[in-house]
């Protein structure tokens, strides 16, 4: 498995587990589909999101040191940076004996959600553009 495949798989896991942080899988009966009951397990999807985030950040750390930020493109670096900054702050807030003011927690949650949606839209746009012109291997990461 190459690095691009790992990136795609991890981003897919993050997207699904991130969506599962909102109680939509239960509400829309997706969790009733055989084999998908786990999507309504709040703690399982929460831990899965953490684990996938760790994998993504390991990949990012490796990639940035080995090939530099330019290899990812400015847009991707900005969006992933916003996801990382808000996500890491939220992870810290969730630790014992840490409490941010409610307004700050809300700001982090909404910004993280916005960044995730933005990166999803950006990835879809990239897929559409890929069908229009032949991509280089690096452009292929969505």
């Amino acid at each position: 498995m190459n690095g691009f495949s790992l990136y795609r798989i991890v981003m897919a896991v993050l997207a699904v587990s991130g969506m599962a942080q909102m109680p939509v899988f239960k509400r829309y009966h997706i969790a009733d589909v055989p084999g998908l009951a786990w999507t309504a397990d709040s703690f399982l999807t929460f831990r899965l999101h953490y684990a996938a985030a760790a994998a993504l950040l390991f990949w990012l750390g490796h990639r940035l040191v080995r090939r530099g930020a330019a290899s990812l493109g400015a847009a991707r670096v900005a969006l992933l940076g916003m996801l990382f900054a808000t996500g890491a702050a939220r992870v810290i807030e969730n630790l014992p004996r840490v409490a941010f003011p409610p307004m700050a927690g809300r700001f982090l949650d909404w910004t993280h959600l916005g960044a995730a949606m933005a990166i999803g839209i950006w990835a879809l746009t990239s897929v559409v553009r890929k069908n229009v012109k032949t991509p280089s291997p690096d452009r292929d990461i969505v």
Partner: protein
Amino acid sequence: MACNLLIRGMLNTLKPQSRITRRALFKALGIGGAAALLPERARAAALPDTGGEQATLLDLTRCVGCEACADACREANAARFPEPRKPFPQMLPSGTKPEDFSDRRADTSRLTPYNWLFIQRAQAQGREVFIPRRCMHCQNPPCAALCPWGAASKYPGGTVAIDADICLGGAKCRDACPWAIPQRQSGVGLYLDLAPRLGGNGVMFKCDRCKDRVAAGGTPACVEACPNGVQVIGPRPEIEALAREKARTTGGHLYGLDENGGTNTIYLSPVPFELLDAGIEKGPGKPHLASVADSMAPSNRLAWAVLLAPLAGAASVFLRGARAVVRRKEGGDERV
């Protein structure tokens, strides 16, 4: 850019009669949110005068079940009780049910959106024990950690509260709470102004230890109203020491010190909590008294993996390089 569009979209959906104003949202997302991240401002705004977390000790040997605490709670918070719009929106997909307690406001037998504290009764070891029940105010509350919308929060003073102006009523806090404390009332809240048929289902309500009264220099209504001094509130280290001392001198039993990783509500009972748990009526709105493992512990361990992962990824490059150098020196494979 897309983030801005999302926020603009959210703002545009807010109607003038909404309880949360555009100005409040701008404040939350912009200046207020950024400023709230500053440590000094945060401390000034959120810490009680004494600093640190506040805890309560409930001495069950003193409780006679008079319900003065529950009455005081209802009176103090009456203005915050939900006034739902009816009929409720027909929610999609069909099968999503509203939860309505507005016709059962006088129900004091359980926790409801109109009753944030109630008295449980248990017969154990030949005596009747009365147990005031409300939010435990966990030190590491899963309801606040798992709320995806930032509606449930832990305050630096140790109080865990749900902002009724923001809550969408998804009830994830109730699912995550080991005692299923928060209770939902449909037909109120922000979801009515966003997508009432498609998302949300009301607002979650629970005890917030009268945080506004406390912020104004008072004490929680239930603590103040008790004629027998069942509850005391103070800095957690002092309350914990008091609880341990009382348990030691009276041969009592403690609940809340370690439950769910530690709570800021500590019960002192003359009989073991296993017996109390067996003796109380349990069910929706009627929480148990069983031992509870720390539900956030596995996530907290993973948190360190998340925070250290970028460094580990960067280090892996250097390790790889170092390994290649060693191989070269040994005259082995030169591939990296």
